[in-house]
C-alpha cells in the first residue's frame, strides 16, 4: 500500500501537508502553553479537549467558507445565504460556550481568559511570518 501511495505525487503532497499541519499544531501547543502558563497537570487535561474543540470549530468555519464561495446568487439564494451565515455563527458561539465550560473545569478563569487572545496572537504570528517571506521574495 505504502509503495503505491509513494508513487502517487498527489498522495505524497498530502502526506507532506499533514506533516506540516502537525508541525503547526506543535507550535500552537507550545505557544498557548506558554501564554497561559499551563503546568503539566493542566496540559494533560487541557490539550485533548482543546484539540476536540478546534476540530469542530474548523469544520464550522469550513462550511462558512464554502457558503461564501457561491457565485451569482439570486434573491432567493442570497436570503438563504444570509440565514445560513447567521446559523453557522450561532453554532460557532454555542460550540465555544460548551467548550469554554469544559476548559473552566480544567483551568482557572484567569488562564482561560487569555486563551482567545493567545489564539489570535498565534495566527498573527503566522501572518507576520508570511508577510516577511513575501518581502524577502520581492527583494530578491
Amino acid at each position, binding site marked *: 500500500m505504502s509503495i503505491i501511495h509513494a508513487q502517487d505525487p498527489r498522495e505524497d503532497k498530502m502526506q507532506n501537508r499533514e506533516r506540516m499541519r502537525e508541525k503547526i499544531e506543535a507550535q500552537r501547543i*507550545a505557544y498557548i502553553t506558554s501564554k497561559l502558563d499551563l503546568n503539566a497537570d493542566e496540559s494533560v487535561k487541557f490539550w485533548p479537549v482543546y484539540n476536540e474543540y478546534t476540530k469542530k470549530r474548523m469544520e464550522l468555519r469550513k462550511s462558512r467558507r464554502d457558503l461564501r*464561495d457561491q457565485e451569482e446568487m439570486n434573491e432567493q439564494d442570497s436570503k438563504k445565504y444570509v440565514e445560513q451565515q447567521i446559523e453557522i455563527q450561532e453554532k460557532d458561539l454555542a460550540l465555544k460556550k460548551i467548550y469554554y465550560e469544559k476548559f473552566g473545569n480544567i483551568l482557572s478563569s484567569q488562564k482561560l481568559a487569555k486563551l482567545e487572545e493567545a489564539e489570535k496572537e498565534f495566527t498573527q504570528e503566522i501572518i507576520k511570518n508570511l508577510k516577511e517571506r513575501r518581502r524577502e521574495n520581492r527583494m530578491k
Partner: protein
Amino acid sequence: MKTEPEYIPDFLKPKPVQIFSVPQDYFSHFAERLEVNMESKILSEIKGLKTNPFKVPESYFEQSALHLTQLTVLKKESHHVPPEYFDTLSSNILKRIEIQNKPTIKKSIFNRTWIYSVAAMLVLSVSLFLIQINKHNSTELNLNAIEEDALLDYVFENASDDDALNLMETFNTSELNLLKLDESLNNESIDELIQEYQ
C-alpha cells in the same frame, strides 16, 4: 415350718475331691527333688561351655543396684520436657507449618517496585523540567521550517474572518484564488487525515 437355707460362700463350699491326683508323698520331697533337678541341668549346660560366657567385672553386682538408679535418673533428666509441653505441641507444629507455607515477602528496599517507582519519579521530574525549559523558550516561534502553503492553510482553516482579511491584504487576489482552488480540491482528504491524526 420351713427355714431359709443358710448362705454359704463359694469358697467355703466343700470342694470336689481328687481332681488332680498326685503320687503319694509327692509334695513331701518336692523341694529337694526340684533342687537336684535344677542343679544337674545347670551343670550339664555349663559343662558345654569352655569358659564363663557371662563374665562381669568384680563386685559388679554390688554396684549394679546403684548403677541402675543412676541410669534411671539420667534417663529421666535427659528427656525432660517442660510442663504442658504436649498440650500445645500439635498447635505449635501447625503454626510452624503455616509460617513455612506463607509466601515470603522481600523486605529489601531494593526490590522491583521500589526501583520502578524511583525510575518513574526520575522520568517525571526530568520531563517536568524539560517542559519548564520549553515553556520559557517556546514563545519564540519557529515557523520558518514550515512551508508557506501549510501556514496559509492554517490561517484559512482556523482563523477568524478578521485574520483572513488581514491575510488578504498581504496577498493578491490571484494567489488567494489559487489557494482556494487547491484547498477545495483537497478538503475532503484533509478532513480524513485530520480525523486519523486526532
